[in-house]
């Protein structure tokens, strides 16, 4: 029995008056990892920002576990269990590692549980809790981002290009962690990626976004997926 966690219906959104994403239908089930692939500038980030409530929805709906959140503000959507990892400026560089995690903890979410998550996923962070986030290396910052999203007990993760600029070893570690936590917590993950090997390794399904519209989808486990997607996103 699958349970739909995040559902988009006919979502059209963009900046000002110009629609960037048009008429997108998507559903993600509990425990599923879906990758949105496509060239630069095709509306992938716009899609995530709109789900998160940063951008107005021109038409269509977004619902979380059946509850409509189309008019939700970012902080309300975050409190309903959606954790968003933007591509840029995703950390407070001048705050410590601990403060960056504590900020995301709401009400009942407990620092001790957060510590458990850290020690399970990226234990090295425990020694660096008092260090400023800006002094971490690029890869360490991404791990902190991952930790922060997992520590808040989110149901849905929205991840925007987390692998940009990362070494292959770090990327494969991320794949492991994301899948393990998905299995443990039943997370639903929507990720936007340029990195094909990461996409194919981590996700279950993909959709292709082309000029703001979904132009294809498939199972990432298929043999020829890598080649198929590459044909779409490269020159």
């Amino acid at each position, binding site marked *: 029995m699958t349970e739909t966690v995040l559902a988009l219906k006919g979502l059209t959104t963009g900046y000002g008056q*110009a629609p960037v994403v048009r008429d997108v239908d998507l559903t993600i089930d509990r425990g599923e990892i879906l990758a949105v692939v496509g060239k630069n500038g095709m509306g992938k980030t716009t899609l995530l920002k709109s789900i998160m409530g940063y951008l107005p929805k021109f038409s269509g709906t977004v619902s979380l576990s059946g509850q409509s959140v189309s008019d939700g503000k970012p902080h309300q959507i975050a409190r309903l269990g959606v954790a968003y990892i933007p591509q840029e400026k995703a950390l407070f560089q001048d705050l410590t590692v601990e403060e960056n995690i504590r900020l995301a903890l709401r009400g009942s979410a407990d620092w001790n549980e957060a510590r458990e998550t850290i020690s399970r996923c990226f234990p090295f962070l425990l020694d660096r809790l008092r260090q400023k986030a800006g002094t971490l290396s690029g890869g360490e910052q991404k791990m902190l981002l991952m930790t922060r999203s997992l520590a808040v007990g989110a149901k849905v993760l929205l991840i925007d290009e987390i692998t940009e600029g990362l070494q292959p070893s770090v990327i494969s570690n991320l794949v492991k962690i994301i899948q393990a936590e998905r299995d443990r917590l039943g997370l639903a993950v929507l990720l936007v990626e340029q990195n094909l*090997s990461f996409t194919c390794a981590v996700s279950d399904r993909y959709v292709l976004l082309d000029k703001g519209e979904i132009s294809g989808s498939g199972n990432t486990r298929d043999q020829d997926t890598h080649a198929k997607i590459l044909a779409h*996103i490269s*020159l």
Partner: protein
Amino acid sequence: MSDVNLKEWSQARHLRPRASPLMRMLVVATIALIGVGVTPFFIDAYSVNVLVRSMIYASIALSVDILWGYLGVLTFGQSAFFAAGAYVTALIFTYQGFSAELAFAALVIGIAVAVAMAGLVAFLAFWHGATDLYASVITLVLPIVVTQLLFSGGTFTGSSSGLTGFETVPLSIEAWFWVVGAWLVILTSAAWLYTRSDAGQLLVAIRENEQRCQYLGLNTSNIKAVIFLICASIGAIAGWMYANYTMVVAPEIAGFVFGTELLIWVALGGRGTLFGPVIGTLIIDYASAHLQGDFPFIWKLVIGVIFVSVIVALPRGLLPVASSSLNWLRSLVIKAQPKERTPMQLRQASERSSTAANEGGGAALVVSGVEKRFGSLKVLSGIDFEATYGEIVSLVGPNGAGKTTLMTCIADGLKRSGGTISVAGVDIGHRPPNQCVRLGVGRKFQMANVFDTLTVGECLQIARARLDGLSKWHKSGICNLPQSALHIIRATGLDNDLDVPAQVLSHGKKQALELAMVLALEPKVILLDEPTAGLTKAERTLIGTILTELAKTEQLCILLVEHDLDFVREISSRVIVLHQGRIVLNGSVDEVVNSELVKSVYAGSGH
């Protein structure tokens, strides 16, 4: 959605018949002058007396409106220029006595002092990169400094009690009423003509989008400074009248509180309407004089409450509300006639000799060793490439590769951290954007960057302002454009929308308009940042065809940042691949398409 806007707008604009603006202005001004002439015979002496002062205040409120309502400079400092005019006059009359020559000298010196102060303020407040808030802060500091200087002048300036008892121009109260009234009518008419001329639209353009103006080759800091000096002179003239009329000056007239009072009158009347601030000042100051005696504190309280409410709920002030309700009433009575107006005429600009340079054969753009750092973060390093006339070079690469940053470095000589860039054989050095335009750089931004409240025709005129100048007293109704810009306008159907405000255009048409504005600059090198973003397939094809033609017929050098790789493949003569701030490949379309390196950059496994 925008099509609906367009339709509503074109229906709304046919509401009211209109005579030629100049005629209307003359009629209104004549009526106003007659009004000024007869008023003293119908009202009591006290009211005449009060109204003279109100009209002096109205003339300076008008200058605040030009600065704030049109140019977008929120100024707290007009009071200082007013005080300059008033104190110079009072000091001369106090220490030299009165004579007609001295009165004239006082006027001239007062203006000179005000202009000198305004020059200092403009130097501090208007420079490439200064924020609106900073400019306001400087205008706020000015009255504070001037007030303190007046206080510290001791017996010379009369310190806190000011100067009084000096002899002034011997006119009766009625005569002053006529002089000041006529001045106010003339000043308002002149301001009205100017703000409705082509050059007046430039003020609005600067307020709306100063950056775009700079990239159209206009030195906005200078334009702002000149307007600021003119407004300072208006303030000084008002001060001269004030000192002559009231025969008393005190430091309060220089102060920040008086400066904000002017803003309150302008805001209540309606910023950016000229008449609103004038009428607002007259009504409020006149009413204050009458009511202050009976209800001194309540009256000021009421003004405060109305002021806050207007700022929050009716930021455009009360005049627009009044006039639109008047129009509504009128439309109930009279059926509106479609108004006759001559649409903007587009003409072909005469060919300039600049094409000679193109035939010289040298590179249009040479970039060598360019780097850009933000603190310790290197965004670009070791960028070397050339591009020649007639070439379309595409810059591609993943997000964050530094493509837009590179464009910015080419269009603004102040932006790069190292290396040299030359355009048509001239090193751009540290030239700001408006001077880079003079060298032949035209830049189109990623998000359509036009002047929203101006019409399409006006946007194009502003784009031509550097080459053709702008009429300062009327709407010429003519815009000369080079062949390339005309071609885009016609191909996209914009020639039917010349009287339409740019904000109601569809996204695609806005992009086309901006491209036409850039071409109107007659550039040699054009930088296009994602010209197809958000366009439909058909629009994309059209833009692609036009760009290819332009490169061929006009021998333009086109540098393009583009995410739509199909588009890149179709139109580019060469492709440069940027990755993490470096050029990883510079070659033909085929070379790039077949490159394993590029594939790995895009697949994300290359590092």
